């Protein structure tokens, strides 16, 4: 079969940020498959220099509009570790709840607004609102619950206001917590409906052996801090994050690439799932079983399913955390601290995967050096090489140009890339 | 189970704390009227110029139409649902119970929306509010009406009143000035005012064009064309603040007592009922104590002009 075609997608839609896909086929053979991030760089690591540690998390929050809470907490964790601040337990729980809110709402946004249209052959979620109103309604409910969790715990769902060094500036009221509990109960049927709906969709069959990296602390499903582990057996301390990432520059992308034991590696829901399956709650495990999802899964399209499994996990956990908080006085939420020189890494599991902020402070508490490594950065190389393998498989199966193009964009979307975030 | 001994039931009249100054709860209708307007149908729209139109409104409910009464000089709060309210002076005859006429310039977003509305659409009015021109006090005297620009709109109500009771007044003069001939409003009524109402009328424009054959200049120039006894004359001056300021000082020099000159002030109003305080001039409310003030009071009001 002698076909020549180019797939050239500029500014891929339904993802956060600007990325391009280039596929070139000459005489039926794949000659080029490229994932290029063309986002404008913002130089956060440069602009943060000289900013007070107190303000720094508010700045790094602005790296990303979707996972701002993760960025805030990664910076806070790095700075608290650098300046030896231990936040109170109550604050730790509330922060965790804030993060759950963000992950839930981000997953819901991705599943219903960005990914689902592909499976239903729609250009966006807007026509789905007409064709499948009850599904969109369920998605909106989950997203709203996520936002409500974040708003109650840190004041706002995008760019949180009350997450501060040393703990929290304000605790949620018991009244708000009780309202959240009711909301969670109301959302359970929506989650069931969502799961049932996604089971009706067919995910492309594609596998490429991949090394998955995530946090792991052995006690609970990972969110904030812990060891850095990979499915290839690598284990590192949080502060040794550079050994996990090995960033390098390519000439076609403004976002850097990373690698560990192989050519590329992946982070995200599927990575967390693959490394921490045993720590999932029964409900989440049951959801995974319903999709036949088992660790270690190497199909990147299954990241969508892993996100849905995590929604189950988060809703269960959030309920438990709220119960803990309802038994608490909610008074001890912030410790005071003295600025000091130091340096440390804060690693958190953002919705899209492991996120590192490394901060160095001087003795006045000003940030003198910072390094942020974003999950999408860690996925770029994997997306790039996946595209290559996927395009080859499609050609081998005799798929048309249109079919190949659709598979490629679906692949990129499965990673739920957060591109502006990756070019920070 | 709630302990009923300590529960305050809903809507319990709790009168004691008012200590003898209990508001009149019984006259509930009077309390209500102030916030729910009269629903009106726009029965006619008369274009006057590119930016000014007369809107003829008819109160929908026959009973309300019967009740609605006003005096020359009073204003209404006109509500265009969705867009909000604007204070508008009433431009029609007090004896006309069928229609209310409002002469409106397209200025803010409320009036702009009204200009889009079709004939037959419904709007709402609250009021009438404010003070009126003292038509009774003027009886047996000359009446000098001086209007500048859109100031002719509030002037129509006293003109209609005078027409209805022409024998009670001596000489009536109407001086009307506009910036340009095209901005002269109600030209179609000039003849009626002069012939039927026996009003001596003169017009003047600041910037004449080719079509204009009349006088040009400042409105005060027209005063020389009439002779009357200033001690026996009342004046009503409506127009932009700068205009009534110099007209009134001119009249003062002519010898008309300051408390016999009446002007209508305009301020931003949000309630029309003396509560929001947006229309305060000095310590007076334009909506309650005005909009009609005698010139002596205006002189004594801080920030009036």
């Amino acid at each position: 079969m002698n076909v020549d075609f180019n797939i050239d997608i500029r500014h891929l839609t339904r993802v956060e940020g600007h990325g391009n896909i280039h596929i070139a086929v000459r005489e039926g053979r794949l000659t080029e498959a490229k994932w290029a991030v063309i986002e404008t760089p913002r130089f956060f690591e440069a602009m943060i220099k000289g900013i007070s540690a107190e303000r720094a998390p508010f700045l790094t929050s602005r790296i990303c509009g979707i996972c701002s809470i993760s960025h805030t907490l990664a910076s806070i964790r790095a700075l608290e570790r650098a300046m030896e601040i231990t936040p109170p337990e109550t604050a730790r729980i509330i922060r965790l709840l804030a993060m759950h809110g963000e992950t839930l709402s981000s997953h819901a946004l991705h599943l219903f607004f960005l990914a689902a249209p592909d499976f239903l052959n729609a250009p966006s979620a807007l026509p789905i609102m007409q064709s499948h109103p009850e599904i969109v309604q369920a998605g909106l409910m989950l997203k709203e619950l996520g936002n409500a969790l974040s708003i109650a715990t840190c004041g706002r769902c995008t760019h949180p206001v009350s997450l501060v060094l040393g703990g929290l500036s304000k605790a949620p009221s018991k009244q708000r917590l009780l309202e959240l509990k009711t909301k969670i109960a109301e959302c359970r049927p929506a989650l069931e409906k969502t799961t049932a709906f996604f089971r009706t969709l067919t995910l492309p069959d594609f596998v490429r052996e991949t090394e998955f990296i995530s946090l792991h602390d052995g006690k609970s499903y990972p969110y904030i801090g812990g060891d850095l582990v990979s499915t290839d057996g690598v284990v590192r301390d949080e502060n040794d994050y550079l050994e996990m990432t090995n960033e390098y520059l390519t000439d076609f992308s403004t976002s850097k690439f990373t690698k560990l034991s192989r050519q590329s590696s992946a982070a995200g829901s599927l990575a967390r799932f693959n490394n921490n399956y045993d720590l999932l709650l029964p409900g989440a495990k049951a959801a995974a079983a319903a999709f036949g999802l088992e660790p270690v899964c190497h199909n990147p399209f299954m990241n969508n399913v892993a996100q849905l499994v995590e929604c189950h996990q988060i809703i269960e956990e959030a309920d438990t955390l709220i119960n803990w908080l309802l038994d608490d006085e909610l008074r001890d939420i912030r410790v005071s601290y003295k600025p000091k020189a130091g340096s440390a890494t804060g690693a958190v599991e953002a919705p899209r995967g492991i996120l590192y902020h490394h901060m160095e402070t001087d003795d006045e508490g000003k940030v003198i050096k910072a390094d942020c490594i974003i999950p999408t950065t860690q996925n770029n190389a994997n997306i790039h090489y996946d595209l290559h393998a996927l395009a080859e498989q499609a050609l081998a199966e005799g798929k048309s140009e249109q079919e190949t193009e659709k598979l490629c964009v679906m692949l990129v979307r499965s990673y739920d890339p957060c591109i502006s975030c990756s070019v920070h | 189970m709630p302990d009923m001994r300590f529960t305050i039931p809903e809507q319990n009249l709790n009168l004691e704390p008012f200590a003898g100054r209990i508001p009149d709860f019984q006259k509930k209708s009077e309390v209500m009227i102030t916030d729910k307007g009269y629903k009106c149908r726009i029965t006619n729209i008369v274009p006057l110029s590119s930016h000014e139109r007369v809107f003829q409104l008819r109160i929908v409910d026959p009973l309300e139409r019967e009740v609605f009464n006003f005096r020359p000089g009073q204003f209404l709060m006109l509500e265009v649902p969705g867009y909000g309210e604007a204070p508008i002076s009433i431009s029609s005859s007090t004896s006309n119970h069928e229609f209310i006429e409002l002469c409106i310039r397209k200025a803010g977003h409320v009036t702009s929306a009204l200009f889009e509305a079709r004939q037959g659409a419904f709007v709402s009015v609250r009021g009438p509010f404010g003070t009126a021109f003292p038509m009774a006090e003027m009886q047996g005297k000359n009446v000098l009406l001086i209007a500048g620009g859109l100031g002719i709109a509030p002037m129509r109500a006293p003109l209609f009143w005078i027409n209805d009771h022409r024998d009670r007044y001596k000489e009536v003069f109407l001086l009307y000035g506009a910036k340009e001939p095209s901005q002269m409003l109600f030209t179609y009524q000039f003849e009626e005012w002069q012939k039927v109402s026996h009003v001596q009328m003169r017009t003047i424009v600041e910037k004449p064009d080719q079509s204009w054959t009349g006088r040009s200049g400042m409105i005060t120039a027209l005063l020389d064309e009439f002779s009357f006894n200033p001690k026996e004359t009342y004046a009503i001056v409506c127009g932009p603040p700068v205009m009534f300021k110099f007209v009134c000082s001119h009249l003062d020099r002519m010898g008309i007592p300051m408390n016999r000159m009446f002007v209508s002030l305009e301020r931003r109003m949000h309630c029309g009922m003396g509560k929001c305080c947006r229309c305060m001039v000095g310590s007076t409310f334009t909506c309650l104590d005005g909009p009609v003030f005698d010139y002596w009071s205006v002189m004594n009001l801080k920030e009036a002009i």
Partner: protein
Amino acid sequence: MNHLGFKMDKVKVGSFDFTCCEGCQLQLANKESTLPDFLNLLDIRNFREISSERHNDYDIALVEGSITRSDEIDRLKAIRAQATVLIAFGSCACFGGVNNLKNRIPQDEAIREVYDGKTIDTMPSMKISDIVQVDLSIPGCPVSKEEVERIVIGVVTRSQVSLPKYPVCVDCKQKLNTCLFDLGEICLGPISRAGCDAVCPTGKTPCLGCRGPADDINFASFKQLVKDKQLSIADMREKLSFYNGFAEYLDT
């Protein structure tokens, strides 16, 4: 809606992002309870973040982000040429936002710091109005969905479209918040434009002025206040420069 005998048309909207975190566009999908009604007001012609459909016949352009690369200037000018109403959406678009913090550092130094000196196409951050005419501004980091709803309704119905002219303190006091100055912190509430529902002081963190200055602010008195309370002028300057909304006051 034709209760007055005239019909409202949906507005044809395009949403575009430049250098930013895209958090403001994300707000459009928030406030889920009114989301279907909100989307019903709009005919979305171009919105890369949520839809694959792209048309270039929009009347209203929401423009998010600041300008930091030459190709963005051309894209922005093309949007301006098409749009009847161009709305600067968010603090980055209105003032340059946090992106302007990089302008404090020489460009080569910033590139060396982040990209090991590799050739990177970038330039000092600029706000939208530095390049093209802006018809309406909705400041905020991120924008408040409530305000966006209000302004979109205003545009659709041609009713009043305006931002509050008064400072954040009005809304903050209405929430019965404790004044952050009483807690020993510098808050930009007294000089920043209201409309955010005082979300930061309500979370007990100081206002950083993401909505820029209110109308006709008394900056001299504010500076005196910081001095009188013996708070740090350096801290005040860091807050004032955070979103670049107060650029004109920094040297005074």
